[in-house]
């Protein structure tokens, strides 16, 4: 029995192309697997194929998912795609296969007994939770030219899930959110639409000199942050459960003076 391994680029386009190609093979789905990025453990007697990301194929898969499985499933799959876990491509592929076997396809994400669907559910939840943490804990600093600038270091690729929140909230602000792990800048011009810029290109557009009043307001907030806690109820363990340590290096109130 031949096993096929499709090696896909780590992106929505890449993985959706992989799923399209997997269906093209017209072989039993158990024999086809999707790998994201580099494979470091090649098996004997297996066929490895590289998938070239293809916009048309990817769009077709995206449309099919949306039409057949509804918006909830589509959103979960998009979140799973942003995950940092290596098995995401395979989980999404097999969840889609499962979905086509279901009577009510819009109930795909409710089918938690199925291991692939459960895995997609887990990955999606991880991304959604991390995105929510960033909406809570991200901190802007005001630069000399009035731009608000924030740095983040997320495990999953959450930037596209958080920028719309801030764009809706600050329509008149120029703001920049920088994912330092992936070297991506999200740019939001006042009254305009936001967009992503990679690496150097973004770097040149952002200066890093803080505005004069930035110090004043960050100190005021630190004062507020410390005063508002009730000392009779001190509970650092609870604080750590609610606000994991890894977010604190980016947060104004936890930065060393």
């Amino acid at each position, binding site marked *: 029995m031949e096993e096929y391994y499709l090696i896909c680029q780590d992106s929505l386009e890449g993985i959706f192309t992989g799923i399209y190609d997997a269906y093209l093979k017209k072989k039993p789905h158990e024999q086809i697997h999707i790998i994201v990025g580099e494979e470091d453990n090649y098996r004997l007697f297996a066929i490895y194929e590289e998938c070239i990301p293809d916009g048309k194929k990817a769009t077709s898969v995206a449309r099919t998912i949306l039409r057949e499985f509804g918006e909830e499933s589509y959103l979960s799959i998009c979140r799973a795609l942003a995950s940092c876990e290596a098995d995401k491509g395979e989980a999404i592929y097999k969840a889609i296969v499962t979905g086509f076997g279901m009577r009510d396809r819009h109930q795909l994400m*409710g089918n938690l007994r199925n291991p692939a669907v459960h895995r997609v559910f887990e990955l999606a939840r991880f991304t959604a939770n991390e995105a929510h943490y960033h909406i809570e804990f991200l901190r802007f600093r*005001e630069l000399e030219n009035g731009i608000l600038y924030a740095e983040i270091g997320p495990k999953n690729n959450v930037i596209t899930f958080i920028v719309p929140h801030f764009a809706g*909230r*600050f329509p008149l602000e120029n703001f920049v959110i920088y994912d330092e792990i992936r070297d991506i800048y999200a740019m939001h011009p006042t009254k305009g639409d936001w967009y992503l810029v990679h690496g150097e290109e973004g770097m040149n557009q952002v200066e890093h000199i803080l505005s004069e009043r930035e110090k004043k*307001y960050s100190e005021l907030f630190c004062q507020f942050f410390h005063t*508002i806690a009730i*000392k009779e*109820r001190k509970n650092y363990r*609870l604080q750590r459960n609610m606000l994991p340590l890894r977010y604190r290096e980016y947060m*104004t109130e936890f930065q060393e003076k």
Partner: protein
Amino acid sequence: MESNLIISSTEQMSLMEKLKILSDSAKFDVSCSSSGVGRRGDGTGIGNTSAAGICHSFGADGRCISLLKVLFTNECVYDCKYCINRKSNDVPRASFTPDEICELTIQFYRRNYIEGLFLSSGILNNPSYTMELIYEAVYKLRTLYRFQGYIHVKAIPGAEPEIVQRLGMLADRMSVNLELPTAEGLQKLAPNKHRRNILAPMRQIQQGIIQNKNELVAFRHAPSFVPAGQSTQVIVGATPETDYHIMTVAESLYKKFALKRVYYSAFVNVNEDKELPALPGGPPLLREHRLYQADWLLRFYGFEADELLSESKPNFNILLDPKADWALRHLELFPVEINRADYQMILRVPGIGVKSAQRIVRARRNGRLNFDDLKKIGVTLKRALYFITCNGKMMYPTKLEEDYITRNLISNKEKLPFDRDGMTYRQLSLFDDEQEVIWQQAING
């Protein structure tokens, strides 16, 4: 005399000093979530609101910091025995100007430090005068600064209904603190406050909300009145009421006044007044925790206060959470068959939360569930296993016997959100994911 000097120097006081005094004075107010209304900005200003609320930080006490929680002034003509700002205390006094409040709110909000403003106040001159000051600040923030984020303000008992109405058109949430669960307690500890005066604005806000809903049906763009609803807080442990008494009061506030939330605040003895109980073990945090657990049972699990407690059993079990305690007194209803029982009954099983119950009902449409599936779904099996069957079988052979199960549940240590020294809640600790948030929005209507 010294305190008078400080009052007169409040004009020259730095913003930093004011913020310190006026946030320190506000910290005991716990009804400060940012939930209840989802509203987009109109594109001409700054801010929007999220129905589930957003926490922006967690303080050293583990409590959520969501709003800039400050008093307008901590000067006060009242002399409530439990309050640090009472007239007879010699503490530094300060007042903000409306512009200072606006600037702080906007500048904190832009940096994503906060979700909005929580503005309360000590009573300066009289209740109506004080509410006018709050109104002035909030009006400026909404109009001049075009702030469209979350605003929570206090309605001060005894103020003119007209000003409550006017302020309600600008605020998202209003709250009137009940302070103490009974009128007698209030009379003893807050001689200037009267139960009747507290309930009057609560009723007014409730009716205002109902009337506004009708207007919104007729005119979609009618301005909204307190769209995130009203809340209140009760101090626990300063007066001798039982848990049963407190839960009955909370239940009637939910039913008769349509409150969104009742908050319970473990009493912290800041004044060491002889009328107040000494609390050598610190604030009654476990008791507060049990009340919150029971409060969730009322609001999301379909329980009634009378099912949980009674005159003859007026206080919660220290060792067991209220749901487990209830289940053990109703073993005749168990075990529950997971693949057949209705949603309401599944909700009542210890170890199964709202999220898990919803997932169970949904997942079992695709086939029968076993214990492994339940584990994946998020059921805490080591608590639930005594109360459920899957396909007619229990997980282990176990006795359906009160003493036996009680012993086992207690030996599995309950996860409490505090060690010996403190605790509190995240706004939506039960609702971590999307599904729940959507469901909660549905409930909140």
